[in-house]
């Protein structure tokens, strides 16, 4: 479906007063959220279904969006959506430079605009996304709104002000691969991306995903994974305290993204908000132990202060650009976490070996 001949004009406004004009696509509704940018050049269906983006308005710096349409809602043998990272689009709004209504791909099923409209998500195109990105880089991620002339704008919304994990986490535990798995992994769902589950399942584990506030005593497992998710980790102090207890147990724990921040808090550390976060597919990280560098997919606005960790913990990975902590580990226990996304999708798969390492540890400890 081509973009309408005369698209409706709209604005992306930031709470600090900056305003950028553009046109609507997808659902023509005004929305509010935290405005963040991602520098990935591919993978919009995966990105916008990533629960870590919950409550955010996503600016894509790559200017051509929608080219290959959107794939179908098919599910794999485990009932997990084949092409998406969660059950729905998680962002509040999408902001692009160019949106091309005409798409083509062997695996496409509809246009991005149609899909956004189906899920009532606002889209804007024709925006000077580079100017907007440079503004965010200089002033930091801020609440913003997609505003439509003549329609009432919603109140500003900051996902850091509430526990957004509660909004994206499953309400009931689910188990996948129960018959086939040789080890049992419990995943605390803070907004887990489906590919984390796929990565575990494909390596022969069975996976039980539990709500973020679930009592783990009710689950039998050999290893624990703390998932990614949205929001400020400080909102999850309770969870961090519970995790601190679990870290005393010998069962290996692996954290990803928000899971890394929770492990950091559990390890006595502090977290802080990055000015504009790391969101993209080109983030270099160095493994301080092997000295090896990898290119990673990232999506986080907060980070752990490596200096603040309890003795017995150490920085494992560092960001190659700004030196912030990208991974931490216990010195004498099998607990580790990374701030980046080894499951990729969208993004490079250089660090997928971390799942092998985690499962090897779990199998060794079983």
């Amino acid at each position: 479906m081509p973009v309408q001949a005369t698209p409706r004009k709209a604005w992306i406004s930031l709470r600090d007063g900056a305003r950028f004009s553009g046109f609507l696509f997808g659902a023509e509704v005004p929305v509010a959220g935290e405005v963040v940018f991602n520098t990935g050049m591919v993978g919009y269906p995966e990105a916008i279904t990533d629960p870590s983006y919950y409550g955010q308005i996503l600016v894509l710096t790559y200017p051509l969006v929608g080219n290959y349409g959107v794939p179908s809602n098919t599910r794999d043998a485990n009932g997990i959506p084949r092409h998406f990272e969660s059950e729905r689009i998680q962002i509040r709004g999408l902001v692009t430079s160019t949106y091309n209504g005409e798409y083509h791909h062997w695996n496409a099923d509809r246009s991005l605009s149609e899909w956004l409209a189906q899920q009532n998500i606002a889209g804007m195109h024709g925006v000077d996304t580079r100017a907007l990105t440079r503004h965010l880089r200089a002033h930091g991620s801020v609440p913003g709104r997609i505003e439509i002339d003549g329609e009432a704008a919603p109140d500003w919304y900051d996902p850091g002000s509430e526990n957004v994990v509660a909004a994206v986490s499953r309400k009931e535990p689910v188990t996948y691969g129960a018959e086939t798995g040789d080890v049992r992994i419990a995943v605390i769902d803070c907004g887990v991306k489906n590919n984390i589950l796929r990565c575990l399942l494909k390596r022969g584990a069975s996976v039980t995903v539990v709500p973020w506030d679930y009592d783990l005593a009710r689950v039998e497992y050999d290893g624990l994974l703390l998932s990614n998710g949205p929001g400020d980790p400080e909102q999850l102090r309770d969870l961090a305290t519970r995790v601190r207890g679990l870290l005393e147990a010998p069962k290996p724990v692996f954290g990803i993204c928000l899971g890394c921040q929770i492990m950091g808090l559990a390890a006595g550390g502090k977290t802080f908000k990055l000015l504009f976060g790391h969101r993209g597919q080109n983030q270099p990280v160095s493994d301080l132990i092997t000295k090896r560098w990898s290119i990673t997919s990232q999506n986080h606005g907060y980070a752990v202060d490596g200096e603040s960790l309890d003795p017995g913990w150490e920085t494992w990975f560092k960001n190659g650009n700004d030196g912030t902590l990208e991974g931490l580990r216990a010195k004498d226990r099998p607990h580790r976490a990374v701030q980046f996304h080894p499951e990729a999708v969208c993004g490079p798969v250089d660090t997928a070996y971390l799942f092998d390492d985690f499962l090897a540890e779990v199998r060794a400890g079983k």
Partner: protein
Amino acid sequence: MNDNTRPGNEGGATRENHMPRRVLLLGSGGLTIGQAGEFDYSGSQAIKALKEEGVEVVLVNPNIATIQTSEGLADKIYFLPLTADFVRRVIERERPDGILLSFGGQTALNCGVELHDSGVLAKHGVRVLGTPIETIVLTEDRDLFAKRLKEIGVPVAESRAVATIEEAVEAAETIGFPILLRAAYTLGGLGSSFVENAGELVEKATAGFAFSSQLLVERSLRGWKEFEYEVVRDRDDNCITVCNMENLDPMGIHTGESIVVAPSQTLSNDEFHMLRETAVSTIRKLGVVGECNIQFAINPASGEFVAIEVNARLSRSSALASKATGYPLAFVAAKLAVGKTLPEIPNSVTRATTACFEPALDYVVVKVPRWDLGKFRKAERVIGSSMKSVGEVMAIGRSLEEALQKAVRMVAPELEGVYGDEWILDDLETELSNPTDRRLLAIAEALRRDWEIARIHELTGVDPWFLYRIQNVVRLGRELSRYTLQSLPDPLLLETKRAGYSDLQIARLLLDGVKGNADQAALSVRRHRLDHGIRPYVKQIDTTAGEFPAETNYLYMTYHAQEDDVPVGDAKANRERGASAVMVLGSGAYRIGSSVEFDWCCVNAVQSLARQGYETIVVNHNPETVSTDYDVADRLYFEELSLERILDIWEKENPLGVIVSMGGQTPNNLAIPLDRAGIKVLGTSPASIDRAEDRHKFSGLLDELGLDQPRWTEARSLEEALRFAHEVGYPVLIRPSYVLSGAAMNVAYRDEDLESYLKEATLVSPEHPTVVSEFISGAKEIEVDAVANQGEVVAYAMGEHIEYAGVHSGDAVIVLPAQRVFISTVRRLKRIVREIARSLAITGPFNVQFLAKNDRIRIIECNLRASRSFPFASKTYRLNFVDLATRAMMGEPMREVSRSLFELDYVGVKAPQFSFSRLAGADPVLGVEMASTGEVACFGDGLEEAFLKSFLSVGYTIPKRGVLLSTGTIKEKTRLLPAVKSFAALGLDLYATGGTADFLKANGVEATWIPWPLDEASPNALDLIASGDVDLVVNIPKSIEQDELTNDYLIRRQAVDRGVPLLVNAETAALFAISIEMLTLDDLKVRAWDDYVPATDGAE
């Protein structure tokens, strides 16, 4: 997807690597199709990177027009042939401990492999730096490569290596027709083609075996989509992909012939990263250290993919990727080769981060190749699996439409975009299914005719997404034609500008159209849109999509914006502080007649300006150039060289002025329009430029000065042309109006020629007269390159052509200083040059071409800009003509350079590099249209030594077996008799066709008579060439321009197709014969540039 690859040390370089002390760098020689300016860029970057590490660099490259062979880069420069023998002698003399093979294309690689195989490198302790030679050999041998990829689990197209015709047929039958037939160890896809059946296979395999002992019979992937990844790996096994690129053209069209888009546009995340991961793991397992390119094909219906090839070296694609992303690939690759690791190398754009990251683009890049097929007689226009393009452009935009339309204008300045230009099209369906250089226009035309996307996709194999984008351009163009400028709604105007429409293109499509001057029409659209606030903005290429503050000077303009990245009016503010900016216009796409030499001029002008304390702004759009490197100018606009865009930049930058005289004809053509638009053109005044360029005005000037010129007329009808020809006598030179036809210049020897050429030129009419001029045969051609300051000549170089007039000066062998010109002639030429400089008040570079015959001197051309031979002159005299010219243009007072400088005790010879082997069917003759794609120059103690070195540098070899002779008219036969005797004296077997055999017999020279190709006899001349019994063919066409001489054509073509050296000009053939009789290879001295002429302060 293989997502569990753990970084490992497999294939990694050893830790014993230590920093080398002195490195030998091999360049790529003269520019050819498939190997062009990109290797000047990569070699220059390598030298800079090594120097930064304190490594000494010795460079071998006979390409004198390159930046890498300039002052201040390499420690030692050898202008010598890139053959194993010469390089061995350089190694013996220089004793390097390392050699870099990956910065000089296939030429350097082949030379290096030969030196390795013959044990020379081991004997002298020369380490191959970077990717190990075993890996290079593996990636070059298609069979080994396919096997290795299968071993490591990477899918490849089914293929079999064959060494005989029989094996080829058998393999093809197993795999099933159609198949792709390819040759190993060649550049630019030479000798590869699609084959539909066994008969065709025999024919094509025979041709292929002429170039390679091994051919590959492969599953045809025609119609699949093609992608490339540029990969970098260090010795610690850190491995990144810097850029991925998508070919708009499907498989079946060589990537050098394809329109290429970066990043990929039609891949999903899974596909993108599946290919990326495969690229990384393949390169790790192959053990590449440095830069590498890997190509993939994807089935558009399923996502199935195969790896096509790996180039374990810098390539055309890596140069493009480097410019497309801002990531300095060649620089980094050189550092990795001497043992640095990616995290150790600072990111030169952000300065805060390292080279270990992958660039994120927030724009789209479109590369379009430049063809010059119209320049070659008989060349096929259809493009395919062999490369024929001679250059390329790169356009940057924030939508595909914007970048694509920019690119079309860049590559073909006569076009205004994808849509809206009038052109004649015979059979649209054929144009679409047999792609030519016009295929984009054909697609637009099909869309204008409302053909279904599916049908166009079926015919072209182009992904529908790209077709939709072109459809959008067409839709907007149609929309425009409903309005006048005044009724045009602003949103539509903005949308068309965002879709890359130029002001002129808009003017043409509007209801009011273009009346009168096109520039004026475009300017009225410009004024209108500026009044309505519609203007482009400046954005930076920063490698991080804005994530980090970047100190980048790399800029482009877009309408998809609401603000500039860089503060506007910077230059204005700077000027107030005392600094002023000067804009230098680059050369645009390399093409026949305008190539790396003009980039050398631009870069040297920029360096001169910087030395004088000016800020510098470069505008250029050629990704193969050094002028577009991040470290050349203070600000680089990777933009169109058009009036519209230069005005846009001017308004942003407010510089002191603009230099148009360094980039060849493209920027020079802008002098007058820019001047009219109120822009300060530095140097010689545009009025003078007009006086030199306008044939009537220039003629009047010469009359005024009492200077002689060949008689000429502007014929408005055939009768007028005939009348003129009869008046001055044949032959006459015909120069058709380029406005209407692509017809080439020609020489007519009689009425019939004149009639047929004028017919070929479509029409001769009062509106489009054809210039007919007297053609003086047997005249000597002399060229003067000079610099003047306010009308006074400051320096000049006088060069002599070996060939008589009639060979384009770009194809001529030029000797510097002139060796065989009378002193009295020299004196007169100098006086004439001074008179011209004075009367045109020249300030800056200029070039005058003369004919000298029987003590009579005629002027044939005068260009008030730097010429093709400025680098040659500058390096031969070691006096930088461009620096002098730039200083003159900036008003620096200067005196004439001392005369003693021009008394050299050595000779420089510049020789043309041809690419006929890549142009199927093209007739390899020399004529009034230029056909060479590059050039080299070498020095020697005498003419013969310098000549022979330069001829060996462009691919000639010293014959050992036999020579096939067809020596033209009786006059030429006589002239060549001493040469033939030289061949005989060398003990070569002589073979001659009909008349030549008789002539030789009559003159007491033994030669075996061999029948013409069309004779019913065997073996004939073609068989002889195929047999390998001759290793030189001398074929002098009887007249330069007679198509019917098919026998001669067949012999020449056979020589080219069989890779046998061919001489087609009597004067060069004679000099070649004398030279090889006088000198053996060992007599050719291996001396560095410094040994001929030491650098002096303030010189080049």
